[in-house]
């Protein structure tokens, strides 16, 4: 448990030092939100209706950049080899990195959410549903993304293969997150709470399977 926390803190610390996510990924996400507004010709009603979908598309794009970053620090100077040589169980590395990704993504979502709130003029009807579904979705995305991050970590074409592998897998999460937000924001009359089960199951399966598969793949990373 302590090792998970150590790996997670390390990831966050590297991020705070290099500031790639803060100065590049976050502005990119906000920019995407703004571009969507242009695409919808600043139609307030449409933006309000589709805010959940647009928000989560943006998050998925940001996740992709985030994960690339999270694993490029590992392979940059071969630090992942030192991680292995520290005799840490691969599962702990998986959970550590997933946790760091979760925390980073969640902060990004909060900032992006505030931007969406002001730019798209949405209103929140059920804050608790909003927060719970965001947490579950982020957990699901973070665990799946960590698995696909290590999968593509030292492939030459990782920037192109990673979205191709990761985005289709995240579609169920994406659908669930949108529906839950639809309900929470009062955009569409659906039962958002029911979707939490899909998000939860997805997060659980990926956390469990990912932690085992991570070791399989870590062994082959050079």
């Amino acid at each position, binding site marked *: 448990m302590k090792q998970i926390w150590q790996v997670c803190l390390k990831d966050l610390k590297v991020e705070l030092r290099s500031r790639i996510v803060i100065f590049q990924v976050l502005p990119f996400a906000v920019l995407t939100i703004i571009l969507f507004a242009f695409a919808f010709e600043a139609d307030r009603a449409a933006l309000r209706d589709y805010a959940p979908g647009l928000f989560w598309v943006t998050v998925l794009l940001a996740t992709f950049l985030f994960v690339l970053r999270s694993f490029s620090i590992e392979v940059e100077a071969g630090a992942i080899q030192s991680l292995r040589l520290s005799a840490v169980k691969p599962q702990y590395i998986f959970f550590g990195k997933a946790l760091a990704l979760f925390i980073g993504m969640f902060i990004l979502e909060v900032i992006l959410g505030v931007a969406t709130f002001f730019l798209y003029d949405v209103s929140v009807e059920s804050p608790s549903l909003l927060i719970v579904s965001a947490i579950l979705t982020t957990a699901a995305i973070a665990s799946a993304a960590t698995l696909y991050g290590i999968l593509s970590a030292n492939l030459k074409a990782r920037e192109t293969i990673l979205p191709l*592998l990761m985005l289709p*897998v995240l579609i169920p999460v994406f659908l669930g997150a949108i529906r839950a937000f639809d309900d929470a924001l009062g955009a569409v009359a659906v039962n958002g709470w029911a979707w939490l089960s*899909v998000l939860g199951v997805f997060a659980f399966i990926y956390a469990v399977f990912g932690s085992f598969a991570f070791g399989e793949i870590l062994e*082959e990373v*050079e």
Partner: protein
Amino acid sequence: MNLSTGSYRTKILGLVMAASFIALIIFAFWVSPNDDQQGGAVRLLYIHVPLAISTYVCYIACGIASLVFLIKKKIWWDYIALSTAEIGTIFCGLTLLTGAIWGRPIWNTWWEWGDVRLVTTLILFLLFLGYLALRAMPSSNPNANVRRAAVVAIVATIDIPIINRSVEWWQNRTLHQRSTLVELKIEDWTFFTLVLGFLAFGLLIIWLTIHRFRVAWLAGEIDSLETELALKKRLEESNI
């Protein structure tokens, strides 16, 4: 020199398969009647439905083979996974295509987002395109690539029910024929033709998988021959 990937048994299998496809064509076009509602378009279902079922059979086989490969580390399992994934993806593409062709006259649209099975199949298609793209990547470490691919295939297979469930909830309505076999009263010959379709496609899966497996096997053998050669060269290098 005999260069074919076929053997005596696969040839017989191939002949039976060819015969069953010819029979399928005869039954589908001449023996079976028009449907009351769909008219002649029902004849598309004789390939569309077996194609769809075959897709799922192939993908599930791929997932299972990948799992066994990760546990047992025997490369044959990987060959099976690769073969079934490739064949399944062809079936999947054709399922989508014939579905679209069928949907045009019957639903009056090429594509219907409200349909669960359609959308699920599309996502599956994308998942396995990713898998094949990963496999097609040149790699300095084939060993690692094979393991990565196995993980991707297992994830994709586990995802089938999740995707299905989530798409179903997402659009809580479906245009698809809900178990046509049970609800509608199907003419005897229609039913028989469908069964014949399943049989023909089942044989096709087996026949194709055997041949594709052998191609993968040959590629593996070529690799190991090259390795032996390289090893020999390397040893000579060290003896100088």
